[in-house]
């Protein structure tokens, strides 16, 4: 399936574990890595790149998940990394990264900046990626189970949804065999971020009905004693009974035919 000699770059960054606060892998970056490994076919044609200030150990999880080498572009914490990354991966035909990283400078804006720098199209939120000749086709994640197909000619930047592909399982041996290669630190201008406190957005849930749980239960079930609103059908042949069921399901929009 993978076109021979496709050059793939995967961007990763350590995330902060939500419980322990320790550096760990981010599921979207891990999914991008797994896709990259599959599409590149061999580790020589795969560049795994990180730009930022994290320590080598923080990247070990990606080695354990199959990256044979993670290249680190050491930068200051607040550096604007898009142009630096773009320069580093200018010859890659396919750039994969998580939709957003779990830490560092890999905000959800980064892929767009990167695509702009590379003058390449961006296909966001991919669940699967297929290479067809000179173009890339993705299945895009949309909320509520919806999906959409997108395609673009290579070279392309694709952001990967965390449910795209399960990461390769964590392997201690891979972690030990993998390497972190540090490039020369580069000076970069600081990113123009403005920090402001986020407002709390409370979204009160509105109950569909004010009746108590017990009342709603009685409304939903059926019994012979007539105390409940449900219906007990005893008359009629099986087809008629089935019709009652079907009507009920249609009424409640549980089937749409």
């Amino acid at each position, binding site marked *: 399936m993978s076109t021979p000699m496709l050059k793939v770059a995967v961007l990763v960054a350590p995330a902060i574990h939500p419980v322990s606060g320790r550096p760990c892998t981010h599921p979207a970056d891990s999914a991008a890595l797994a896709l990259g490994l599959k599409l590149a076919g061999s580790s020589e044609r795969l560049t795994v790149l990180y730009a930022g200030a994290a320590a080598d150990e923080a990247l070990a999880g990606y080695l354990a998940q199959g990256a044979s080498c993670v290249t680190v572009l050491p930068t200051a914490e607040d550096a604007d990394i898009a142009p630096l990354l773009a320069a580093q991966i200018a010859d890659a035909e396919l750039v994969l990264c998580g939709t957003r990283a779990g830490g560092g400078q890999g905000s959800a804006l980064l892929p767009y900046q990167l695509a702009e720098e590379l003058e390449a199209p961006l296909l966001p939120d991919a669940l699967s990626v297929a290479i067809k000749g000179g173009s890339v086709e993705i299945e895009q994640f949309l909320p509520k189970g919806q999906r959409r197909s997108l395609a673009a000619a290579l070279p392309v930047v694709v952001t990967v949804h965390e449910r795209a592909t399960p990461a390769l*399982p964590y*392997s*201690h041996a891979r972690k030990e065999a993998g390497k972190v290669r540090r490039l020369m630190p580069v000076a970069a201008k600081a990113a123009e971020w403005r920090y402001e406190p986020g407002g709390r957005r409370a979204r009160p849930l509105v109950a569909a009905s004010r009746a108590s749980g017990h009342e709603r239960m009685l409304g939903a079930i059926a019994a012979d004693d007539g105390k409940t609103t449900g219906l007990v059908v005893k008359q009629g042949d099986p087809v008629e009974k089935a019709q009652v069921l079907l009507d009920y399901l249609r009424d409640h929009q549980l089937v749409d035919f």
Partner: protein
Amino acid sequence: MTFTLAYALTGLFWLGAALLSLGLVRRAALWRQGRAAPVALGRLITIPKRYFVDLHHVVARDPFIAKAHVAVAGGAVAVLALAALNYGLMLYLPALDALMLLAALLMLAGAMLVRARRKAPPARLSKGAWNRLPKSLLLFSIGGALAALLALSGDAFGTAAQGLALLALAGLALGGAELALGIGLGGPMKHAVAGLLHLAFHPRQDRFSGDKRSTDLKPLDLAAKDYGVEKPSDFAWNRLLSFDACVQCGKCEAACPAYAAGQPLNPKKLIQDMVTGMAAGSGPAYAGNPHPGQAGKVRQGDPHQPIVGGLLDPETLWSCTTCRACVEECPMLIEHVDTVVSLRRHVTLTRGEVPGKGREALANLRDTDTVGGYPLAARYHWAIDLNVPVLLPGEHTDWLLMAGEGAFDMRYQRALRALVKVLKAAGLKVAVLGEVEPDCGDLARRLGDEATFQQLAGKMMDTLGRYRFNRIVTPDPHLFHCLKNEYPVLGGRYDVEHHSQVLADLLERGAVPLKADAAPLPATTYHDPCYLGRYNGETDAPRRVFKGIGIKVVEMERSGRKGRCCGWGGGASFTDIPGERRIPDMRMDDIRATGAEQVAVACPNCTAMLEGVVGPRPEVVELAELVAARLAV
């Protein structure tokens, strides 16, 4: 005539000896495919003691077969020794012939017993070549007896002597072939030679040294990239030898909870799979029960090919609860759990392919130091109103209470609270570590993740090293086992007790203020945790606790060292390999069979597994809860 027979016997003896030696050389070449092992040749002198004490100790649990084996093996060894002396060295002394006659008759009696057992064999026994064995034994003993008789009788048989001599020779040759060729061709009698050598070169030499049970897993040298066993040739040579000792008695199969639950693991077949791998081939001669659900599957083994995926399904590996019931029962002292864990280590460390929730649990352990991914600060939330001091560096306490992972389980928190109440009522000075207590690494280790285990163990030892305490008490047998038996080689030595031991002592010293007898107690049975009973030999302390609070325990058939696993051990509840039944359901049936209204447990994991059994069932209560219910305050 007699002399011709004598010469023939001499010839036969040396022929047999030569064949046996050649066979041994041939088989040894298979063992030597394995890695080097640090055992000295001098261990050979330990064989008699280990045979008569350690091995016989296990065999004697089945008195019938013990008697039969003593008669057959004792008789055979005596016949062979006398034949070596009298015919091998060409002494031809009638006195030795008389002794040989007696020995042969003893062996004959034993062989009859063995044959009787084989008439209606229990399902766990292998058939095939093993069904031939009683006949070979009979032939050999009759041949031996006849030969000795002829040698003693002079010319008394007249013309019949020649025919009888031929018969004797034929019996000896046919029966003896079983022994002489067994080791070389991998027949049933290979167990005699391999079994004795296995006793000498056993991979766990500490099994034979005194009182301590040798149940700890040995650390891997990860820095040297030792990632466990992938191919048969990755086993140490004495492990390969140990597989050849198996007599296919199926004692392990009958004891295995995973097998009984219909999960695809039969420990006997597992050991035979290893033999197939070592000797290369497809193991067609195996005539015992298969791994459940895998009847008729033929698999190729090769000493230099990966075991998992070829010879073994990964599901077989992940079904094991590491309960050690098989090891406890094995008359040949074979170590199944070591085998399973060595194979798991390679899968986990190199490919990480742990099934079910195992992967998630390992990731949690790496990222949060807890199995369930909980914040460490929450470990002692249940104790917030109990006034248990959190130990600070520089302070000192008599007892350090370590709750383990059970502290995050709301059901088990009740037991922990009960324990604290009892310890306090008894006036013990107890403290906890609070949020600095990491996981001990038990689960990671049993799932084969030695790297995470060693990392957690290091963290735990660092932490404990910063605090001052006399002794550790824990209600978690897994934590107890790790601290007590598996940390010492890594450099951590602690005085650690299981809460049942502490409670038993307190009750016996009268240190716990108890109410006068209240209402009559419901009938109670006790479920032994594997990691307390079999791993640490502690079956007594919990029972002393029951005695101390006036509970008479109705014992289950499988209890004490023969207890049946609850199904949690070895991470089996995480890998969750499907079978026909669930192990905890079977255990609950054992409990129901006693008619007890409640079952006492002494482990957070047993508690969770048995509480998880649905439908009407006996109540599950923790040991500490039973004691707390009798407190006078």
